[in-house]
């Protein structure tokens, strides 16, 4: 089964993360996202894929305009 066949409603995940960031504000968003990442990695149960996702997340970080 490829990743694309999976039944993941990324729209809902996307919105939930956005709402979480809004709810916790700049001060606590970092910790909220860190917790979410640890929980997702635990659920994934695959260290290599988790590390790959973390590496992928670090690409194209510069040159992006920060939302205010």
């Amino acid at each position, binding site marked *: 089964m490829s990743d694309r066949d999976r039944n993941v409603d990324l729209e809902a995940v996307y919105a939930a993360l956005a709402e979480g960031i809004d709810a916790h504000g700049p001060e606590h968003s*970092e*910790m909220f996202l*860190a*917790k979410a990442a*640890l*929980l997702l990695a*635990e659920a994934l149960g695959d260290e290599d894929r988790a590390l790959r996702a973390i590496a992928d997340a670090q690409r194209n970080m510069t040159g992006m305009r920060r939302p205010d």
Partner: protein
Amino acid sequence: MKPHGKGRWESLYFDYPEFEAPARDGLAMRAPVTIVGAGPIGMVAALTLARYGQPSVIVDAKHTFNDGSRAICVARSSFTALQLLDVLGPFLDKSLPWASGRSFFRGRQILEFFMPDSATERHRPMYNIEQQYIEKFLHDGVAANPLIDMRWRTECTGVAEAEDGDGVALTLRDPDGPYEMRTDWLLAADGARSPIRSMMGLRLAGQNFEGRYIIADIQMENPVPVERFALFDPDARPGSTVLVHQQPDNIWRIDYQLRDDEDEDEALREENIRAAVQKVLDECGYDAPWELEWWSVYSANTLLLDGYRHGRTIFIGDSAHIVPIFGVRGFNNGVLDGVNIGWKLAWHLAGKADEAILDSYDHERRRATLDVIEKSEKSTQFMTPRTRGFAVMRDAALSLALDFPFASQFANPRNMTPYEYHDSPLTLPDAEAWDAGPPPGAAAPDARLDGAFLMDGFGPGFTVLAFGDVPGTGLLEEHDLATVLRLPPEGEAADVYGAGDGDAVLVRPDRFIAARWHRANGAAIRSAITRICAGGLQEDGE
């Protein structure tokens, strides 16, 4: 430090003896081994040498033991060593055994951990006892031993390889002034600030972490079970980590981390110590009255010497390495140094081992320290995060741990079993496959046997565990090479060692496993002992 009005050697629970320097008359000016420093590690080394019949001189600049409780957690591996040195009795009477602990995050329990323990072991995983007692009990053994020449109030002020190549020339100074002495071997057990290290132009290398801890001892009657508490981000000290330990004599150790923005001198002032301790006690729910005993500051360093042996000078204990407080390894790691060099030097001095065996001390004990450092770096990084990233992740893990047990494992103290000498030149790798049991290089485990313990029967030197029918072992006893324990091929000892009929395990004097065989015989074991004593089992290029 001590409360206002109290002297450095005044204590609520411990009477410091006052030792005098020995009379100069008749003092030996030549010794096979001289140990500088009568801290715990210097004394362990002297007792180990004496255990194998080798005399030594110990000098210490002070007139009494170190002040303060310092290293309070004594691991099973150290108890095994103390048993070998015949000084264990008073430690068993005085110390508090423990095997579990709890961690809290913002007042809520997130973890209860249990250190691995087993009924097959005589000793518990950990014992708490103040370092003054450790030093006193070791010193009782030293003072009673005619092979050990203990010289208090005697400072080593100079050290040089003798120009005539005959040993090491030492300059010592006691209340009567300086004198010169020669020694064949010098063990530098002179502590973290080692003057010998400086005199020889050597430096510790490694990382100097920023984490600073205050360690404060109080006396308080508070009869609760002995365990270790870790408080992360407690209300008492937001943003910092607090550890609470119980010691004998109703002494409690409160360790608390200083935040980066806290001034050390300010934090060390008595009124600030008192206020900080009170807040921690309040948070723990301890409301008994207490008295302040002693406090100090400790930083989470990881530093070690590039080489532990420099010609005829060998560094042991804190002079060779400084490790962070969290792994409780400062003392326990040093004990294994002292026993390791002790038996090897004794074998060499007795003409039973080549000088090359001494190099295996550096090989084994430096790797052991590097392993401690690697393990404790993980704990240190968790307890005192060095960067913002690690601080965020630490808080994330702790906050998750309130609801999810998987996340609490980050807060679990790392394994405290001793380092295994798998790649040591003295370790013979298995020639055939073994399904179970500790491999060569591991610490020898204990087992129950006939109402006592297996290790009680170990010899002072090499011990051979012969399971069932192992031919030719009489030879080892005839040549005084090893103590042979003839054991049933089934039962607890066989289970623990993964051994069956015809198998044998060779245990070194310091109670680490050197080799094991299926279908063993006395000749093979004898040749292994010979090669160990030649300083190496492995061929070149292996």
